[in-house]
């Protein structure tokens, strides 16, 4: 996480505008990457000392430091070879120094002789395993453009770590955001925006009710690289920066580094079902994460939509109720009962022992053990 001193932004009215790195920064980022290249095979402490010095190339100092921090996280090192295992060298040399008087050089030589190495080799070995002594390995292939995007992501995440709450309007893939929020212990209220298939997510932590806290900043920041996987999004973070409340806005096209593509399925169960059904019924499309369904003020996210290719009217929503906690299942079924969906297939794990009365009356039910039977689902949709 970037520290306070490395946040580069301007405040425009009530907005915080991050100073993103762009194409015009590529020359000095290239120079920075080249500097790293020159230190490959040398101890990390030498590079760190070099980077503390005033830079040889132009570049905004704060943003240069941001990029250096991002690089440090990507950097890999390898241990230096030592003639004697360093810990053993330390144990022997410092104990001998406690036992004997006399010049240090003589002492090193005599310990080295007992180990069959030279005094220089022994001196080199003494701290060869410390982090600063690790030798710099080549960076993963990284262009100035990618370094700029990664630095921008670090900046936005650092700004969001000062956020009390975040609102995201998202179309497509919003389920991934909800899942992340739940996993990280955030409170996530989901509403539907009238008419559109968009979800409006309000995210904050339980303790944020009482005062501004950075407790959830990391979890909120982790949402950012997931956003580029939404078809459309608009994020507004309510941040406190230097004692002022400012809003941070992000939209598609902002130059931030995306996460690897989120997992397409929540479980192997879902993945297997999708594969089996596609094989068995090529005339049907299996749509993963269809548009959310409004229920009162909240939304439900069915697992799949099954859509017949030639008959648009033949469309079913499908939910796999797998092995979750009883509360979770009860809550989910309650929502589906309220939704009264006409074309709903519920696949229920037999181990859940759901009573018929708990299930939505209009739904078709396919019970399963271990694996959802695609053929049984196909019989339901005809």
């Amino acid at each position: 996480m970037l520290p306070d001193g490395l946040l580069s932004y301007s405040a425009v009215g009530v907005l915080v505008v991050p100073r993103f790195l762009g194409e015009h920064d590529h020359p000095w980022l290239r120079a920075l990457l080249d500097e790293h290249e020159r230190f490959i095979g040398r101890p990390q402490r030498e590079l760190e000392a070099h980077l503390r010095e005033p830079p040889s190339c132009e570049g905004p100092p704060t943003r240069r430091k941001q990029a250096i921090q991002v690089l440090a996280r990507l950097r890999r090192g390898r241990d230096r070879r030592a003639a004697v295992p360093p810990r053993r060298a330390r144990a022997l040399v410092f104990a001998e120094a406690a036992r004997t008087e006399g010049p240090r050089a003589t002492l090193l030589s005599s310990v080295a002789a007992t180990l069959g190495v030279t005094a220089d080799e022994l001196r080199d070995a003494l701290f060869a395993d410390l982090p600063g002594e690790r030798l710099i390995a080549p960076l993963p292939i990284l262009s100035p453009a990618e370094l700029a995007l990664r630095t921008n992501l670090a900046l936005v995440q650092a700004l969001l770590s000062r956020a009390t709450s975040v609102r995201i309007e998202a179309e497509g893939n919003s389920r991934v955001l909800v899942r992340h929020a739940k996993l990280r212990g955030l409170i996530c209220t989901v509403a539907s925006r009238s008419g559109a298939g968009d979800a409006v997510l309000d995210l904050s932590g339980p303790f944020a009710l009482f005062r501004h806290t950075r407790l959830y900043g990391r979890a909120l920041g982790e949402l950012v690289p997931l956003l580029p996987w939404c078809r459309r999004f608009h994020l507004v973070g309510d941040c406190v920066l230097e004692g002022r409340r400012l809003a941070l806005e992000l939209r598609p096209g902002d130059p931030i580094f995306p996460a690897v593509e989120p997992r397409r399925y929540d479980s192997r169960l879902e993945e297997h079902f999708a594969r089996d059904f596609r094989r068995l019924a090529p005339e049907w499309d299996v749509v993963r994460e269809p548009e959310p369904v409004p229920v009162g003020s909240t939304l439900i996210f069915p697992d799949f939509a099954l859509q017949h290719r030639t008959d648009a009217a033949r469309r079913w929503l499908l939910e796999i109720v797998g092995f979750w906690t009883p509360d979770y299942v009860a809550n989910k079924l309650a929502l589906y009962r309220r939704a009264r969906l006409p074309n709903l297939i519920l696949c229920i794990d037999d181990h859940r022992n759901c009573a018929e009365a708990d299930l939505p009356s209009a739904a078709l039910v396919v019970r399963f053990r271990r694996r959802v039977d695609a053929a049984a689902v196909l019989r339901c949709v005809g």
Partner: protein
Amino acid sequence: MPEPGTLGALVMKLRFDRGTILLTDPPADLDLAQAPGVLWDHRVHAHRAPASSYPALKSWLLEAGARFEDILLYQTHDAPEAWLRVDLRPYQEAALSAWELGHRRGVVALPTGSGKTRVALAVMEKTRLPALCLVPTRVLLHQWLREISALYRGTVGCYGDGVHQLAPLTVATFESAYRHMGQFGDRFGLLIVDEVHHFGGGVHDEALEMAIASARLGLTATPPRSAAAATRLAELMGPTVFELAVSDLAGGFLASFDAMTLYLDLTPEERSGYTSLSSLFRLAYGDFHRAAPDATWADFAVQAVRTAEGRRALAAWRQARRLVAFTQAKRRALHALLARHPDSRVLIFTADNETAYAIAREHLVMPLTCDIGRRERDDVLQRFRRGDLRALVSARVLNEGLDVPDADVAMVVGGALGEREHVQRVGRLLRPGEGKRAVVYELVTRNTMEVGQAHRRRQGLVARRSAQL
């Protein structure tokens, strides 16, 4: 007054929810807005309070005659024989009594080496409550685990340094507590915080607010001096209920010590470098200070990074600091001092790791830094205890809490953290011994920033408030 408990379907429920208390289904005639710490949470359509308000909230509900289903409370866990007897010195007994009289909430301030952990063990043994002990570093985590295990026969839980294991007595690092208190803040009735002065400044205070524990004991050698931090700490842990300084115990329960300051000069080359760096710094700092006489160093740092001149000034200040960290004169003085104390156990303190390694290479003194792994560190301390090593050099690791055996000479080559750090460092020498008189040498470079630093850091050693023992 009605008893709390499960009294039907529509009884108000209290639930621990990620570091807070959630109140659902309250009776219509109960105005929860008046209850301590409670706010309406529109996100979940329920009332919510910070977990630390739980004891006050429960009392309020009982007084109001409300029926409620309580959160699932911890159980007192142990048969008394799980604890061995914890013997206390008179001032430790006095500290324990003061804490009891303070309704089991408060901070005990005792000098380093006077056995603060012992007071904590006695509190655990006496209250028999499930206890969570918070410590600032991984080094202290393992030290506390060892010390509790020596007197307690049950399993001791550990949260930190890659281990996530809960038990009725658990030790956790501050960082782990900050991240995970929302998961286990309802498990403990007693919260003990070592080096409690780290809290009260707003950073990570949530770790203490997300625990329901009503019994709270803070331990420190250096309680916060600023009124704001002290007030906040009192809210979180209770007020300072007992306080003794080094000079209150020196010569009795702590060893006496002599402090000697050696004023050293820079070489002409060093002086010329230092003068140009410090004038560069003073130019920018002087302008800033004139414009904002009440501003702090942190204010200056924030301001300085915004301009090229400010950045140059900060860089010059850092270089000047590095220059005085280990000067030629300090090298020579250290050599002479090590030769003067060939049979003593010596601790050398530096301002940074770089200097610690430089001393380690030059004088062949074992360094104890954050880079040295736990096993090697334990092994080094064992060998120091046995006398196989006679000196250790460290920047920060030896500062706080670590139980260092019987050292009798300290050489302070440099420091970065002022009064608090100095008190902690001197405390390393104060374990009493037969006829022991410890010596603290401070190496201070004349006409540099070190003179002011040395003056400030000594303030912490003067007597505070002697307790009636």
